[in-house]
């Protein structure tokens, strides 16, 4: 009985407020409490989603946005991990690169947009590059921090048990740094979507951002809302996936 009650509170309760907001929103638009010209009813947004899906534009734009986000994340996150890893384990590497990376980190990456357009144009590479820049720094910082804060006592224990450098890395350094690295992954997934939205809003002829900008020109408020909701859902989905990865790989923390 107590377990069922706990299940209700953990699974159902967090959804009560969003559902209540949607219901209130629907009623407010239908009773003309809110002007539907600026705030369309949730049912109208769902109808628009079905219409766009049937026309094939919705899935096409979602696919291209996902492609840009994924590729940018792989490049940016991969390089961030590589530089963070070596900065964490090699004093020479850290001395060579860390100051420069920390300096670049303080440049708002949106400030790079004019330069990116000038150098890379407005094709796919520009958008992927901007997402990569946005995801690089959170993963770099967290990987570097995670690796360099692995307990010296555990490392000494590993050395005293005659572990090779590779064993030290796989058995102690990487697992010890993993919670911090995964925190960086979650944070960079957030910056991934922000970078993508900006990239697609500034210069694109496809993608969710383009769909939204295009709808603004045609005063189609329903599509603008639909795009905002899709961004929110994709953001939530990626965060959920990162959280599942944390649950699977850090199950020892729950013990």
């Amino acid at each position, binding site marked *: 009985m107590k377990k069922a009650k706990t299940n209700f509170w953990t699974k159902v309760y967090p959804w009560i407020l969003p559902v209540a907001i949607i219901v209130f929103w629907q009623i407010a638009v239908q009773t003309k409490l809110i002007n539907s010209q600026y705030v369309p009813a949730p049912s109208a947004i769902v109808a628009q989603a079905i219409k766009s899906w049937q026309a094939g534009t919705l899935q096409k734009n979602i696919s291209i946005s996902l492609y840009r986000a994924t590729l940018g994340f792989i490049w940016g996150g991969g390089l961030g991990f590589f530089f963070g890893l070596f900065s964490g384990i090699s004093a020479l590497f850290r001395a060579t690169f860390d100051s420069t990376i920390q300096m670049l980190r303080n440049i708002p990456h949106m400030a790079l947009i004019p330069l990116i357009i000038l150098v890379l144009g407005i094709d796919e590479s520009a958008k992927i590059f901007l997402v990569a820049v946005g995801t690089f720094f959170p993963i770099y910082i967290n990987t570097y921090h995670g690796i360099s804060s692995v307990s010296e*006592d*555990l490392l*000494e*224990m590993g*050395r*005293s*048990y*005659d*572990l090779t450098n590779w*064993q030290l890395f796989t*058995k*102690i350094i990487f*697992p*010890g740094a*993993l919670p911090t690295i995964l925190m960086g992954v979650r944070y960079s997934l957030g910056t991934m979507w922000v970078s993508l939205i900006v990239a697609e809003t500034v210069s694109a002829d496809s993608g969710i951002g383009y769909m939204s900008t295009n709808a603004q020109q045609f005063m189609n408020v329903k599509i603008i809302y639909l795009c905002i909701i899709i961004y929110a859902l994709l953001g939530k989905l990626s965060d959920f996936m990162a959280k599942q990865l944390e649950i699977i790989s*850090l199950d*020892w*923390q729950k*013990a």
Partner: protein
Amino acid sequence: MNLVEVKQVSKAYGKNTILDTVDLNIQKGSFIALVGMSGGGKSTLMRMIAGLEEATSGVIVFNGHKVRGLNKEARIMFQDDRLLPWMTVMENLTFANKSPEKLAKAKELLELTDLTEHYDKYPTALSGGQRQRVALARALMSEPKLLLLDEPLGALDALTRQKMQDLILDICQKQAITTVLVTHDIAEAVRMADKIYVIKDQGISGRFDNPNYTGSADEQRLQRDHTEQKVLDVIYGI
């Protein structure tokens, strides 16, 4: 026959001399204790025997060979258990080598340390005493010639501590493992060791042979108390 010979060993960190021309012989199969005040150099001496630190001068000979770098035939058990929290008990024992022989050895040690039912648990799910038993089992995995105990029981409650002392003594005696115990607890040293060395004033200030006490329980307790008092007198310079 000596397993370890510490010859004229000194250790200094910058201008701060911790140990000055120390000589110490540890016989094969013996159980010795190093006692003394904090910062006196007990753990430093042990770490040099383990090869985790280098002597500033002098030599340490282990089983006929000069210790250079890690002493692979010695295993150290630290004050904090230093178990890997992301590995289960079994994985903590076999993390360096997962061969079938090592798995069998790990099972045997888990049985010996009464941990068989906990083999798949993570360290955070174990009590302090259980964690130290895992650390002991891990130290014994490679069948070391020398077991170095760096105040491993310091954080345990009195009852668990006594049980651990009995377990360590039992294993070391049965397997004839030469053991060095570093401890603040004089009673623990008297209870466990054959010989007690007082580390003080950068060297060894006293050595006590600890006989097998005879007579009734009360008489044995009195004899132990007497030895403890003699050790304390040297530590406090009385």
